[in-house]
């Protein structure tokens, strides 16, 4: 088959799978923007294919385009026939009818340039950076060759267990091996393109969400600031899983925030799916999901008198999806042995934490150094965020912005704790991981800066409760 057709299939199949799910979720809703529906459809499709692929391996069924895509399409078709209540004619709109201004064209040009640059850099070399090769690439190869040589599932698991960080989930390796399955050959040049694709999806989704709460021009500006962060683009060209995790976690949380602002049931379902896929992308997904659930819980308690039946239904669906995906991730961790290399039960012991308190000054020093001094990685984000917060200090601690502030603070505290208790030399750990960890929640800082700068200018921002 023509390689170009194969590459097209590797994108089209997850896209249409995800689109089927999105149309089911939003079946009774208003129209969605094309720029919103494309990235979330692809994100959902990749997540579903990776989970289904793992279940197929578990059942001893070989991975191929037929075994992966066909059952899923049939399932979605059946669900549409049984559940669908109305036609989705004209569901997708191409976008706003307002003609973009010159500034918006310029910003779109800069965003397009940044994305194209990342794809260009990524396409130059196959995966070659340490983590990309020995962590994710090797796992992807094991999965790919498991289907090529019909390797029993137990031997595949054994091979996966020999790699460092055995509890690392498999969304990224499955998405890389999916590309190679459609090509019918192992090609680490093409499967690397999964990473700039996640960068593109993050940029488009971030814009489509921000556009709902601030004017379009401001949303474009802050989307450009996000995608122009040097380190974010660099990670997308290296083939590191943190870009994908950032996509799933940030978009998942922002859809939750959208639901808090405007209780469209589908938003919370998308949030559950994305946060769930985040758990399947990196180990940090589980604590990040728990932080999001905590914030959701606070919102529900604070607004319990105002929540309508539909909203409670949405919350029920959220927890149902969370339990399903959490159960799946726990099952995977059980199969892999359930151990984390750096955090153990001892890490939760107060005496152990107190003994490690001398690490705090080093950790805080390095965080501020990265945040305020590493211009070549984070540009002036630290300063923009701090000044935005200082100038809008009251808004930052009032709903709905309070929920984003809380997410940033809790994430920051979580990672301080991880560095405090990790059973690894602290300077080495900080040096190899800090920037990637910052990347997980830095888009929230860009989002909140955009909100605060444009606050008061957009009607929808003023709506809080139902």
């Amino acid at each position, binding site marked *: 088959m023509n390689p170009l057709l194969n590459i097209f299939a590797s994108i089209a199949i997850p896209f249409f799978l995800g689109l089927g799910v999105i149309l089911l979720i939003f079946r009774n809703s208003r129209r969605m923007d094309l720029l919103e529906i494309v990235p979330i459809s692809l994100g959902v499709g990749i997540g579903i294919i990776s989970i289904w692929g793992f279940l197929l391996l578990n059942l001893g069924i070989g991975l191929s385009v037929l075994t992966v895509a066909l059952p899923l399409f049939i399932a979605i078709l059946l669900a549409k026939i049984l559940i669908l209540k109305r036609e989705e004619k004209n569901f997708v709109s191409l976008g706003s009818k307002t003609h973009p201004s010159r500034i918006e064209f310029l910003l779109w040009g800069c965003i397009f340039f940044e994305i194209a640059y990342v794809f260009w850099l990524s396409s130059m070399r196959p995966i070659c950076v340490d983590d990309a090769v020995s962590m994710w690439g090797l796992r992807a*190869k094991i999965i790919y*060759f498991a289907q090529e040589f019909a390797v029993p599932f137990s031997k595949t698991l054994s091979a996966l267990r020999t790699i*460092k960080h055995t509890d690392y989930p498999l969304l990224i390796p499955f998405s890389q091996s999916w590309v190679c399955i459609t090509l019918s050959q192992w090609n680490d040049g093409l499967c690397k393109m999964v990473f700039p694709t996640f960068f593109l999806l993050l940029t488009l989704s971030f814009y489509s969400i921000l556009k709902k709460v601030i004017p379009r021009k401001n949303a474009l500006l802050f989307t450009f600031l996000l995608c122009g962060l040097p380190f974010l683009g660099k990670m997308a060209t290296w083939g590191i899983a943190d870009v994908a995790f950032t996509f799933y976690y940030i978009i998942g949380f922002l859809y939750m925030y959208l639901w808090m602002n405007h209780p469209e049931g589908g938003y919370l379902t998308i949030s559950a799916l994305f946060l769930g896929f985040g758990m399947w992308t990196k180990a940090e997904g589980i604590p990040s999901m728990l932080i999001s659930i905590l914030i959701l819980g606070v919102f529900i308690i604070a607004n319990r008198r105002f929540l309508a039946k539909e909203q409670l239904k949405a919350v029920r669906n959220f927890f149902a999806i969370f339990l399903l995906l959490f159960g799946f991730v726990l099952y995977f961790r059980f199969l892999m042995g359930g151990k984390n290399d750096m955090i153990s039960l001892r890490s939760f012991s107060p005496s152990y934490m107190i003994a490690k308190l001398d690490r705090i000054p080093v950790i805080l020093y390095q965080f501020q150094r990265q945040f305020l001094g590493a211009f070549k990685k984070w540009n002036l984000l630290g300063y923009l965020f701090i000044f*935005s917060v200082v100038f809008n200090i009251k808004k930052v601690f009032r709903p709905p912005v309070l929920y984003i502030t809380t997410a940033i603070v809790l994430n920051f505290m979580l990672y301080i704790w991880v560095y405090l208790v990790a059973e690894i030399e602290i300077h080495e750990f900080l040096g190899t991981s800090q920037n990637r960890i910052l990347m997980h929640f830095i888009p929230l800082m860009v989002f909140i*800066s955009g909100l605060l*700068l444009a606050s008061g200018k957009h009607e929808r921002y003023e709506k809080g409760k139902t």
Partner: protein
Amino acid sequence: MKLFKMWHSKLKPFILEPKDYVLWIIIVIWIILWAVFHFMSFPKDLANYKQLKGLSLEQKHALVLGKELHEFLLFCEVKLPPRQKVTPVGDFKSFQDSRFRYYIYPHRICADADYILVYKDKSFYKENYSTFAQFDESSRILKRSGEPN
């Protein structure tokens, strides 16, 4: 006074509060820095692109691994039966075990394998192993002899 009020009402939408000026100045400097970083990195990226343009995937692997090691690994891929356990021995220098495992897969590394990959070590000898395939003077594949596969 009337004129002033008229102009003030026209200009009002564009008059920012002092805090907004600070934030917009940061954003303008941000954009300038973004352009500067791209301007500084573009020549190096372009030079890399020119070096890598037109190379096949295997040639790019050779650049990453080093030509000799890459050729040896290709030789191993051709000569070894599928999915074997191998033990690498010799001058792999800074090539980390974890990365080597990726490039040699689907062959798997273990301590006491039927096949030993000897790279740039002329003098290496192990009892019960004989030369299975010779790459060059100092690199070869040894196979356990005298035992069934």
